[in-house]
């Protein structure tokens, strides 16, 4: 199935294009935009990015596989990244991951059966002074305790009901101050 950006997202791309000296430079921003709409970097997305920017699909696919934020398969409605790097680990990150695995019913690297959650391990997310921490879609949640996780997850579900985007993306509609 072919992929097309929505007009709103296409407008973001059109605003960015003249600010870069090459079209290829838009590869990362455009993949972000597409992923926000589609939920992952599907083969159709890769084709679309390649033809829109005039680069080969091999190059785009190479970019998709290089960067952790690009999803290579469908993910849950909510994506939880748990930081397991040293500073967080010294403050109990392992316990947070284990509690999340129980609550979400899936292991790190997996999506829950109901499609609600994807749990992933992350490397240092630049919040080392506030560990343990998770990135839940586009938000950081810091100084976590196991007791606080339920409220956190409930809040995320609610926000996912309201949001326009399929998944989080740093470039897209939401960053423009819209939902």
């Amino acid at each position, binding site marked *: 199935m072919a992929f097309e950006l929505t007009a709103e997202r296409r407008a973001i791309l059109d605003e*960015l294009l003249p*600010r*870069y*000296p*090459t079209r*290829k*430079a*838009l*590869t*990362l*921003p455009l*993949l*972000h935009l597409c992923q926000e709409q589609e939920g992952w970097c599907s083969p159709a997305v890769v084709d679309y990015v390649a033809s829109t*920017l005039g*680069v080969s699909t091999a*190059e785009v696919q*190479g*970019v998709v596989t*290089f*960067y*952790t*934020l*690009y999803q290579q398969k469908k993910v849950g409605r909510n994506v939880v*990244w748990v930081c*397991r*790097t*040293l*500073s967080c*680990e*010294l*403050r*109990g990150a*392992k*316990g947070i991951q284990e509690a999340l695995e129980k609550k979400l019913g899936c292991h790190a690297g997996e999506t829950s059966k109901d499609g609600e959650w994807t749990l992933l391990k*992350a*490397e*240092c*997310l*630049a*919040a*080392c*002074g*506030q*560990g343990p921490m998770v*990135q839940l879609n*586009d*938000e*950081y949640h810091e100084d976590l305790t196991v007791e606080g996780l339920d409220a956190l997850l409930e809040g995320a579900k609610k926000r996912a009901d309201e949001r326009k985007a399929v998944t*989080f993306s*740093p*470039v897209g509609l939401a*960053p*423009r*101050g819209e939902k």
Partner: protein
Amino acid sequence: MAVERVRILTKNYGTPESWTLAAYLKSGGYQSLRRALEMEPAKILEEVKAANLRGRGGAGFPMGMKWSFLKPNPGKPNYIAVNADEGEPGTFKDRTLMELDPHRCVEGFLIAALALNVHTVFCYIRGELVLSIRRMQQAVREAREAGYLGSRVLGKDFPLDVVIHAGAGAYICGEETALLNSLEGARGEPRLKPPFPAVVGAFGAPTIVNNLESLAAVPTILELGGENFSKLGRLHHLKDGGVRLYGVSGHVNKPGVYEGPVGLTLRELIEDLGGGVRGGRKVKCVVPGGSSTPVLREEDLVHAPDPKSVLHAWHGKSHFDVPMGVDTFRALGTMLGTCCAIVMDDQTSMVRAAENLMMFYAHESCGQCTPCREGCAWMARLCRKFARGEATERDLDTLTDVANNIMGNTICALGDGAAMPMLGILKLFRNEFEEAVRTKKPAPELR
């Protein structure tokens, strides 16, 4: 003696809506940009040189000197690439500037652009930092509406754009040439140097790459004058000047980002700023400036009887009492790095700590160079064996060997950044690895 509290870079932290243009203007914002518009570019460069600002991204290169290496190429524009990829484990300082004072960052970019005859600044922010990205985008929008950038800068005929570019999750993109490849839309694989970015950088054009905090200090450098800025630090005499952001994380009571003069000691950072070690325990060791910097212990004393040594003034003192400077810490056999320390208490298993760090590098190696790609993964597997109590005597030799064979054999410094802390831990805590071999017991988990 408690450390003097400095509020210069962090002046606006805590102000309501500190990220808005209105708040920034109220605090005297964009006055330095007005000053810069009255100055010759060469004069701005002179002030930046006098400021003795050593790059805040980890390598500690003098910012003024780097700027003077920019080699304009007729037919190509000059660019600035701001490094806001903040990915070095333990480092979480640039994020606070972007979230709490984005206009200070933008003002710094604009002044640098005037000094370097740059019409496009690319600010590369790691993709996970969504709040930082939003705040920086908003700041650029507000600055454009207010006429600080766009087709003219405050009425001066100097078109200037700041493009906020989101990364997509890859530690290696903090390495300056990987960042440039990533900005150009490719995989973040580092380039061979030379040519250096100041000669051939982004899109084949001369490019200055600076850390975000380095540039965020520029408005203050013009406000106070370069030399006065330098003298705010304690290592002015070593040409390592100004104020900077410190981070402290791990087993301290008050982890966080704090501002201080250049040259605080680790003891001050841990005790005065970090509130001391959790539970009143003792420190086992500290990763001084991001995970690539070899650990230091309190009980190790400076040996510098030679009066010509940079460390002579601290001869016989604890490593924790040496001021944190680029040259002082290099002389100690470690690196200042990003000045963000990870503190580990006396219950910490260094075998587990090494395992954790090596897993990071194994995951983040870009895969271009064999010694790094294979070596980091190999070190991680070996550390895991030690942590599980499955390692043999020979594994200890292999681990040392692998680390030594990464050093200096790769295109970029990621490999060294993994091997150095590994060798540092093996040097100071070899006994813990030997004990793992002897007892065959799993090491205690980190907590």
